[in-house]
């Protein structure tokens, strides 16, 4: 029960954090998240302060990511040499920086969307309008609205992750 509560509360947060740490590499972030969650079960203890707990989680997540990166480098060192695989400055990655970087990237790429797509995102997420309402206004079906939103989100995700990757290489 306690594990489920923890999981629901911190899964998304850790996932975002590791996406930034892994410079948008979803596979690496996924493996690191898995490792971090296992480490949490092994080393969990009582914390008086939530921020201290979160800092502890980020340390676990970074060390899990570093270990996974080492494993990958061991197995794919040859490939790494040619692909110049992502190298991340682990120590400087803080929670605020992660959120700020993700939010900033997202906002920038929302702004770069074509007007109709940007309008759709704004209606759904900033004006908090329902899909049916948007569909009525645009004179299309709800399914079409969902489909468009899905495409836009995918586009934004690809753009954000690509830029994270680009930043880390730069």
């Amino acid at each position, binding site marked *: 029960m306690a594990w489920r509560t923890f999981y629901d509360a911190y899964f998304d947060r850790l996932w975002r954090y590791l996406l930034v740490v892994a410079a948008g590499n979803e596979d690496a972030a996924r493996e690191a998240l898995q490792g971090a969650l*296992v480490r949490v079960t092994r080393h969990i203890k009582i914390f008086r302060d939530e921020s201290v707990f979160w800092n502890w989680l980020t340390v676990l997540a970074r060390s899990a990511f570093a270990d996974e990166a080492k494993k990958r480098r061991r197995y794919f060192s040859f490939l790494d040499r040619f692909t110049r695989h992502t190298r991340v400055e682990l120590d400087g990655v803080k929670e605020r920086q992660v959120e700020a970087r993700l939010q900033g990237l*997202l906002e920038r790429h929302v702004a770069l969307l074509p007007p109709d797509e940007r309008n759709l995102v704004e209606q759904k997420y900033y004006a908090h309008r329902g899909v049916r309402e948007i569909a009525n206004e645009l004179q299309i079906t709800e399914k079409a609205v969902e489909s468009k939103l899905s495409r836009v*989100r995918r586009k934004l995700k690809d753009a954000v992750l690509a830029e994270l990757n680009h930043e880390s290489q730069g």
Partner: protein
Amino acid sequence: MNHKADNDPLLADVLAEAAPADFRDAMLGETLRQVRRRRRWRQTRRAAALLVALGLCGIFIWQKNLPPRPMAPAPALAVKTVAKNYQLIQTRPFPVSAIMATQPLAAGQFIASAGTVARIRTSGGNYRVINDDELLALVASHPAVLIRTGPRSEELVFANPDDQAGFPLN
């Protein structure tokens, strides 16, 4: 429109886009599986360590209870040894408890299995009393005198002391 505050649901949806539908549940299941596997491995390792410790204890106890082995002859040393022209034998008296003593039987308990006395048999009527002349005639070849020592006792004394011990009669 200031989107900063409203970006969180969008960011969550964007990052969740194209992820497997059961990403969270799959991750949870995999974490639990790994934790169980680690626990099983830890238990197996503890049991193996216990068995090894017990085995070592058993060997140690067995070695302690072995009878002492005779010392192997020391390897030849560079010390020059002088050959002895005698063989040293060391003896020790038996302990009192190892000695069995015997005592002579009492006279009443002694039974001889072989005869110790020569048995002779005499028969009456086969002899006659001789007079002094007949006696002197018997020892005529050995000079002797008959000395009367009392009214009914006489002693025959030989001139040659060797004849006193006896001699064969013809």
